[in-house]
């Protein structure tokens, strides 16, 4: 037996090295009382408290005392960012520790959405008379934050797309649970068993379901956890998304929560149909990395069409969490020249990998693919496919180079790499056959179990696959627990590939404490633009409720203008759109006041 040399960051406490090694081998650290999955509690010796607190990776804990010219502090840090934090100039040493401070109050106070923070003359009754649609995973209808004071449900319907179909299932699939069925289940000893639907129990991989957490931020009333969400009087329609078995599913998606774009569109259609003339906002905290990023995908076009077809409708979407993942690259290819794109597949990556490259219809590139040891496997021209199959005929490597996408006219190259191929840095060499424009953008598909990345540091254009539409309101994330409200280190960046300014706004999405499924009254901490989007959905519900109370209808463009006008600055500095904060941090008070002003001006 021989010791195997590992590629683990060595200038760090050995216990952290072991954690990093485990992470590198694809093992996730389980949550503990004080940390989430993939996170570690630390005690640090730092030169500057301000610099320590300013790092968005750091979930601040306690100030323990002084040590010479330094400060001893506790906090929590994502394992993925441990090396980055350890190497920060302010950090002298880093060791394990624990400390937490739970609150959803930060979201409500920072966005001025609490009852006492809205304009005095507001009539919107905290979202009453508005439907908030949540398309997400795991609805805990029994959590007290989602019940009325008399113990009945606040949920109008749950459409479980994964449930067994009945004759009246929407679009022929899934199972709808009505308000009366939910109320009957709530009277049973085991409401989840009674209804035949419930949130997944906690596991080593997940602490609290995503959907319950998201829903609580937007509409929870605090009856269980004592802290209400943004629009606690709104009514709820929840859709649990399903997915179909698609051809390229592999181990990378096993056990993950994911829906798909067709079922997502049907979920939004269902919510708006059920809402009828009732004002409605739909929250979508889902997304992935691929796609044209110019708003022309049919899922984005479908969302736009549904929002436009009737006043008093909105769809709010999370920007995505890919800023630090190295998933985007861009460049120019000269005619007769070549551009090398380095694609790093980590040595411990045990998942399939995918890349998309989009470029102008007026150009023609050839793609040459080169292995990490420098072997060229061949060149694929526009309109050609290339593949290498294994002995059983299954694709190891597949490349499709398609001419003129029917929705935007651009050319696109898709590359699929199976997990058995060599790791290291592959080269995607783009040869300019003709290049009137020459520009290209490339994205690596999201892979939570082993994200590959491009060589170089281009974190722009990292919005999610469904976050580039024309009518949606896209939301970035910042940390409301820190005095400087810094951007979350993961919060994706705009603009869109065609240069439009998205995300529109930002909201607290970092270390947000909200309803913990299957706890009855408890809360759990989660981070992501997933947690920022429902804060904005809740604020849009307040806007729609105020408009309804004042007897005015507001079309999508007015809702978007209100959101844009109600965004606070500093940060972001200056007055211009910021690629991650958007137009600023959304302020519910200003948004509701804008509705009042519009009504008075009519």
């Amino acid at each position, binding site marked *: 037996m021989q010791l195997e040399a590992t590629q683990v960051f060595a200038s760090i406490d050995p216990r952290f090295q072991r954690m990093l090694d485990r992470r590198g081998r694809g093992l996730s650290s389980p949550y503990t009382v004080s940390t989430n999955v993939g*996170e570690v509690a630390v005690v640090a010796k730092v030169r500057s408290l301000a610099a320590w607190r300013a790092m968005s*990776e750091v979930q601040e804990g306690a100030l323990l005392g002084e040590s010479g010219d330094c400060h001893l502090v506790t906090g929590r840090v*994502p394992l993925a960012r441990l090396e980055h934090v350890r190497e920060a100039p302010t950090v002298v040493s880093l060791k394990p520790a624990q400390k937490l401070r739970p609150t959803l109050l930060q979201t409500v106070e920072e966005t001025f959405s609490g009852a006492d923070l809205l304009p005095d003359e507001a009539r919107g009754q905290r979202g009453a008379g508005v439907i908030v649609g949540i398309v997400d995973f795991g609805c805990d209808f029994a959590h007290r934050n989602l019940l009325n004071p008399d113990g009945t449900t606040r949920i109008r319907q749950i459409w479980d797309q994964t*449930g067994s179909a009945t004759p009246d299932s929407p*679009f*022929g699939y899934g199972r709808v649970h009505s308000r009366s069925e939910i109320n009957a289940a709530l009277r049973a000893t085991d409401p989840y068993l009674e209804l*035949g639907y419930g949130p997944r129990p906690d596991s*080593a*991989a*997940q602490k609290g379901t995503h959907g319950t957490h998201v829903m609580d931020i937007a509409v929870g009333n605090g009856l269980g956890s004592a802290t209400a969400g943004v629009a606690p009087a709104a009514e709820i329609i929840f859709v649990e998304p399903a997915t*179909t078995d*698609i*051809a*390229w599913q592999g*181990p990378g998606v*096993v*056990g993950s929560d*994911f*829906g*798909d*774009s*067709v079922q997502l*569109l*049907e979920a939004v*259609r269902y919510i708006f149909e059920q809402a009828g003339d009732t004002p409605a906002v739909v929250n979508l905290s889902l*997304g992935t990395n691929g*796609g*044209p990023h110019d708003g022309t995908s*049919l*899922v984005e076009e479908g969302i736009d*069409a549904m929002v436009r077809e009737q006043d008093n409708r909105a769809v709010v979407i*999370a*920007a995505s*969490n890919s800023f630090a993942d190295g998933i985007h690259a861009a460049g120019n290819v000269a005619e007769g020249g070549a551009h090398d794109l380095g694609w790093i597949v980590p040595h411990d990556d045990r998942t399939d990998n995918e890349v*998309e490259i989009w470029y102008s219809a007026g150009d023609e590139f050839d793609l040459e*693919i080169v292995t990490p040891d420098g*072997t060229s*496997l*061949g060149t694929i021209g526009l309109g050609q*496919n*290339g593949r*290498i199959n294994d002995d059983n005929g299954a694709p*190891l490597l597949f490349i*499709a180079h*398609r001419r003129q*996408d029917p*929705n935007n006219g651009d050319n696109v190259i*898709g*590359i699929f790499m199976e997990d058995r*191929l*060599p*790791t290291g840095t592959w080269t995607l060499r783009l040869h300019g056959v003709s290049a009137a424009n020459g520009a290209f953008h490339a994205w690596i598909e999201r892979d939570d179990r082993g994200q590959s990345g491009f060589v170089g540091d281009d974190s722009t254009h990292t919005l999610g*696959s469904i976050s580039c539409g024309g009518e949606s309101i896209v939301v970035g994330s910042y940390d409301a627990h820190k005095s400087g409200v810094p951007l*979350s*280190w993961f919060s994706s960046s705009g603009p869109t590939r065609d240069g439009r300014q998205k995300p529109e706004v930002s909201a607290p999405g970092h*270390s947000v404490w909200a309803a913990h499924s299957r706890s009855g009254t408890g809360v759990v901490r989660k*981070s*992501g*633009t*997933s947690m920022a989007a429902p804060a904005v959905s809740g604020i849009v519900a307040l806007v729609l409720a105020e408009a309804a109370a004042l007897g005015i209808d507001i079309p999508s463009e007015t809702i978007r203008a209100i959101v844009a006008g109600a965004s606070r600055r500093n940060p972001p500095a200056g007055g211009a759109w910021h690629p991650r904060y958007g137009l600023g941090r959304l302020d519910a008070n200003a948004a509701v006041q804008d509705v009042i002003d519009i009504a008075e001006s009519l």
Partner: protein
Amino acid sequence: MEDERKNRAAEDSDEEETTRIGSDSLASLNIEQAPALGKLGGSGLGVQLMADADEFDAIVKVLEEGYKPDYVECRAEIAPCLITARVRKGDLAALEADPKVVSVEASTRLPSSDREDD
């Protein structure tokens, strides 16, 4: 439902070993002309893999409001010119030839946008 979720969790915890193939063992790319599927939109990869599948869910954009191709299993009318449908492999040629069909986009997976490592 619960059993399925337990199974998923069990699968999730499995550590699967991958046997790597060396670069020197890889054959060169077999290059072929792509099939004429000009109306299939989205990722070139997704398009091709869907074309290889027996059937798949898709979003179909049509030219005329309310038009629903009767040779595919239409499921929902999302907008006047946009439907969702279950498409069989054999339907692709008909969709390609249908002058009232603008484009077809295969369904893509959408995970939740939280950051479990923070």
